[in-house]
């Protein structure tokens, strides 16, 4: 063996599926001086890859997981280390059958072949299934089984052969050293191992269940927790041995018992996600030497498995006589929100995370990280849901991670509603009006850690006033209330008061603030003091990194207001790109200011009771920010009136100091008492009001895969100043008309095959041609519903979706699939379907 190296460009820690694929992808992208380390031996260093069940069910409701799963499956196929055995998810309950219909819909969205099977048809494919206990199955012929360890070996070999990658197994990382880099930014500098110290420019933590512990060495966090998934290998079973291969029968996922049965040569692997959540601290994981099997194959706790065993026998009688030959409490990684942790850590520059990734998406996720490191952003897919910078401080504590994992483990095979709320770890971040809202019987939805009222129980009378009906199907009603329609109609008729405290508010200060702000934003920030700028922030490739409002608050001061779902990512983006010469300072003032939205035809009259200021478009023009004092409870409160609207009616976002929020709330509610003011929830602000206006939402309509031209957010001219993504943006403009356009569609008939009125949820339901064909552009991007909601003021269910330009014409008839039924839809607009000329907002 050659002498242990002391210098590298990049050190990847962890030689499981992720680290091994990562060095391969880095090599493909031209990286050199790569070192891969693992404390265990090869090919199985003892992490989760070594005991993975190695199958890929490509259909997922989540776009990132589905597309990266498919992308990974194809990489395994390209290496010839994959077998398409097919897989069937079986249902024991009608509720599950409905979920399978939902899965059919997602399969259609991603273009994955799938079939709904009768119990008899399931039995034809898997003759040992007891078809009496199931109602049907969801069959996907491209479900595959892969050889993850051999894949790791192949990818490492590629990196060694093409880029001279050096691989050191049985090498334990003892520390990760950092230095204070330019501008005082903590930057990774070296990896200390038991064989020596390697100074390096980049470090990637691909350490699976150990990732947080390793990241902690550098002062960073990777919020995940090692969690047990039980598996038992039972056999031998003749009918399986007779296939004479690794797998000859489709994998069966017994969804309602949270179990799977996967043939493994002559025996059956029964895996469970149905037991209690069993979480471990990384320090509780034994070393390779201490472990009886491998470190992540912990001692089996049979009591936790018995119920699944009974259900497995119920489904496959032959399993009863099969011998339990090998059973483990296998460890895998869970994160607070179920998504991976990819990207540069927020705490330490050049320290990257490639963690909480399962075998099924390993190669694809590795590609994402490699591209991110190379190009400054992933190219293969928008990965904002996996971006590690999405986590707020409150989401990185063990208390939070453990609570979420404890609650979510059972959801692995669960039926999870798109709007489903967490039970634990609530009320972490609340606005100043929280107690008032509780008194008003508010239904809170949690956005990351922030509580936001979705509707107010106190407005129940509006349901009767406007004659609003419940939705006929429970699923459509779940996490929804007709009150939200009442709040919407009341806002359009009178006015509504919306709590926007969860806005993430930052300020840039200093002589370089405006120039730096211009560097971030597509639109010009160097405008008159007191003006606001609604602008995209682009990726280097010209897609959306973010979409937000910036405000020129002073000569050398710019405020940034972004949504709560993107605050972490945006703050990190700012810090990462900020000049290091001290010309700009960054302040997170989220907890210093609070925002209330006051909108509706009566909004000026309500606000007029607190001030003598001219509230017409003369004194408070659309888009302007006016400093003002408001009379609140007998005292004057400093406020900024920002005339803007995300709901389509006139009014303001009113910014005051956090501590003055309650006084302002009380004053406005008092002033509006006779003018029909109602507290109004996110169901209007984020959904129905927004959709009627066709406003795009970051993370839904806006992703890094789409550019401002496609989103319909391009301005006539491009500013002269440079900004991130400018070159790509200019190139896109020069290419002429965009291939796709964002549209609003109306559902023309919501009646399903059972005669019930249905309401699409906005969960990637595919938009289809009249003949049922998928709509896919030349980049492979499928037309699918990015947001959906009922538009009370237009009386139609509204959908947003990108469509090829030739279809993005009002009046075009198309279809949408929902729960495996088809519904006629019509393109309504590329802009608003309500008050299209903005008369209500701007007059």
């Amino acid at each position, binding site marked *: *063996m050659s002498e242990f190296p002391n210098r590298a460009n990049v050190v990847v820690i962890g030689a499981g599926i992720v680290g091994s694929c990562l060095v391969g992808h880095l090599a493909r992208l031209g990286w050199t001086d790569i070192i891969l380390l693992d404390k*265990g*031996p*090869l*090919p*199985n260093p003892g992490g989760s890859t*070594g*005991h993975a069940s190695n199958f890929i069910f490509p259909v997922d409701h989540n776009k990132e997981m589905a597309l990266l799963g498919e992308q990974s499956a194809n990489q395994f196929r390209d290496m010839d280390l994959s077998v398409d055995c097919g897989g069937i998810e079986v249902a024991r309950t009608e509720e599950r059958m409905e979920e399978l219909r939902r899965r059919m819909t997602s399969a259609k969205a991603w273009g994955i072949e799938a079939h709904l099977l009768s119990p008899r048809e399931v039995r034809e494919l898997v003759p040992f299934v007891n078809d009496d206990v199931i109602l049907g199955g969801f069959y996907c012929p491209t479900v595959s089984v892969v050889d993850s*360890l051999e894949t790791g070996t192949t990818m490492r070999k590629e990196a060694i052969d093409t880029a001279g990658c050096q691989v050191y*197994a*049985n090498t334990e990382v003892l520390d990760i050293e950092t230095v204070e880099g330019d501008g005082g930014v903590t930057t990774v500098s070296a990896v200390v191992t038991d064989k020596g110290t390697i100074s390096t420019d980049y470090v990637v933590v691909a350490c699976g269940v150990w990732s947080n512990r390793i990241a902690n060495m550098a002062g960073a966090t990777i919020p995940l927790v090692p969690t047990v998934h039980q598996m038992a*290998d039972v*056999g*031998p079973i003749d009918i399986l*041995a007779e296939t*004479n*291969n*690794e797998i000859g029968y489709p994998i069966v996922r017994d969804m309602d018992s949270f179990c799977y049965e996967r043939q*493994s*040569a*002559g*025996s059956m692997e029964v895996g469970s996600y149905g037991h209690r959540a069993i979480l471990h601290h990384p320090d509780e994981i034994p070393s*390779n030497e201490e472990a009886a*099997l*491998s470190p992540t*194959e912990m001692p089996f706790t049979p009591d936790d498995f018995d119920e699944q065993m009974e259900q497995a026998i119920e489904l496959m009688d032959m399993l009863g006589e099969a011998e339990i*030959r*090998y059973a483990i409490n296998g460890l895998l990684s869970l994160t607070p929100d179920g998504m991976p942790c990819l990207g540069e850590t927020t705490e330490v520059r050049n320290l990257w995370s490639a963690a909480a990734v399962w075998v099924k998406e390993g190669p694809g996720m590795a590609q994402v990280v490699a591209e991110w490191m190379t190009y400054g952003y992933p190219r293969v897919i928008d990965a904002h849901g996996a971006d590690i910078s999405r986590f707020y401080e409150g989401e990185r504590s063990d208390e939070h991670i453990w609570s979420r994992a404890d609650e979510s483990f059972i959801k692995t095979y669960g039926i999870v509603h798109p709007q489903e709320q967490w039970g634990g770890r609530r009320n972490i971040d609340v606005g100043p009006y929280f107690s008032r809202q509780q008194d008003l019987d508010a239904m809170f939805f949690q956005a990351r850690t922030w509580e936001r009222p979705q509707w107010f129980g106190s407005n129940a009378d509006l349901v009767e006033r406007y004659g609003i009906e419940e939705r006929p199907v429970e699923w459509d009603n779940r996490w929804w209330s007709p009150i939200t329609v009442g709040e919407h109609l009341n806002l359009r008729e009178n006015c509504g008061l919306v709590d926007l405290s969860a806005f993430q508010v930052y300020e840039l200060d200093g002589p370089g603030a405006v120039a730096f702000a211009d560097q971030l934003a597509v639109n010009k920030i160097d405008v008159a003091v007191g003006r606001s700028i609604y602008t995209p922030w682009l990726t280097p490739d010209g897609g959306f990194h973010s979409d937000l409002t910036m405000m020129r608050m002073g000569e050398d001061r710019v405020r940034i207001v972004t949504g709560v779902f993107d605050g972490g990512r945006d703050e990190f983006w700012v810090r990462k790109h900020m000049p290091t010469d001290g010309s700009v300072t960054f302040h997170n003032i989220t907890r210093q200011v609070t925002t209330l939205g006051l909108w509706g035809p009566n909004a000026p009259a309500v606000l007029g009771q607190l001030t003598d200021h001219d509230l017409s478009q003369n004194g408070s023009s659309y888009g302007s920010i006016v400093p003002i004092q408001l009379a609140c409870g007998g005292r004057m409160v400093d406020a900024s009136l920002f005339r803007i609207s995300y709901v389509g009616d006139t009014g303001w976002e009113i910014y005051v100091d956090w501590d003055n929020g309650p006084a302002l709330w009380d004053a406005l509610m008092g002033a509006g008492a006779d003018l029909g003011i109602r507290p109004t929830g996110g169901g209007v602000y984020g959904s129905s009001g927004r959709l009627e206006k066709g406003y795009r939402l970051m993370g839904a309509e806006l992703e890094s895969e789409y550019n401002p031209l496609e989103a319909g957010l391009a301005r006539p001219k491009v500013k002269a100043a440079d900004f991130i993504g400018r070159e790509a943006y200019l190139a896109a403009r020069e290419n002429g008309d965009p291939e796709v356009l964002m549209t609003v569609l109306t559902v023309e008939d919501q009646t399903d095959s059972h005669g019930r009125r249905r309401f699409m949820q906005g969960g990637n339901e595919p938009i289809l041609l009249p003949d049922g064909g998928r709509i896919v552009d030349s980049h492979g991007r499928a037309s699918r519903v990015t947001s959906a909601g009922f538009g009370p003021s237009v009386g139609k269910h509204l959908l947003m979706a990108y469509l090829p330009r030739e279809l993005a014409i009002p009046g075009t008839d198309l279809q949408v699939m929902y729960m495996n039924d088809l519904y006629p839809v019509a393109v309504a607009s590329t802009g608003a379907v309500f008050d299209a000329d903005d008369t209500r907002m701007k007059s």
Partner: protein
Amino acid sequence: MTLLILCDHDRGTLAEASLEALTFGRDLAQRAGLTCEAVLIGDGAESAAGPLAAHGAVRVHLASHAQLTDYGPEAWGETLTQLARSTGATAVMACGTDRGNEVIAHVAARLDEPFVANCIEVTPGDTWTTTRVQWGGSLLEDATLDAGQRLVTVAHHAVEATPADTPADCSLVQFTPDLGEEATRTVVRDRVVLTQGITLATAPVVVGGGRGVGSEDGFAPLEDLAGALGGVVGCSRAVTNNGWRPHSDQVGQTGTRIAPEIYIAAGISGAIQHWVGAMAAKNILAVNTDAEANMVTKAGYAVIGDLHKVIPAITEEVARRKG
């Protein structure tokens, strides 16, 4: 003040382990101020007495009885018990072999005294202190021994048998135990050579092949080596999945769990599932091109190299030594 050391023999052939016991015991006797005396039991014992003096025995007790035709744990245990009583021995010891531990346990049961098995160190005193082997050597236990007559065995291979600097002036003493029917009911009645074929589960040597063997034909050299060593061939799951060997040859969680004296794992990376089946082997020799393969790391011994060259070379060397 006597230390009695049971010396095992098989129908007159002294067991090597007995000399280890003597080597350990004469040193202990010296430190404890005891005389080091050997005990040989049963037919043919006298012919085994030769090397005992050279290894420090100052007296050899030759126990004989009409019923002591062959080894018998109860008969030997009873005999040694009677000798211990009649000599008033301070301590009785043996080597920690199957027989040594068994006989001393019988003495312990009969004397109702404690017995400390498989020691690597014994320090005499008012209360003796011992260090003994646990977990097959993975752990050591320090234990005190508080007894009227002290019973210990010395762990096999804990010391190397070496002659004393000066051979003892040794005398032979005959001893005839009083043995009833009960004591002789467990004397060996027969000896058999196992005629049935060796199985994977019981073979003393298993030569295993993995993915690295490459083909069905690639197993021929492994068969040759197994044949030369009186062992059998096993394989990993990758091999059965490829159809190179039948499932009955598979070592692992879903195959057979083996416990041979040595497992020679050729071209096997060492997946956990395979390891589960092989880990009970007393010794593992991995033959692999990859020095960092799991099997190499876990094995006690390894040869780094191509099994297609290494295995035939071993077979050749075995043949050469066997002549």
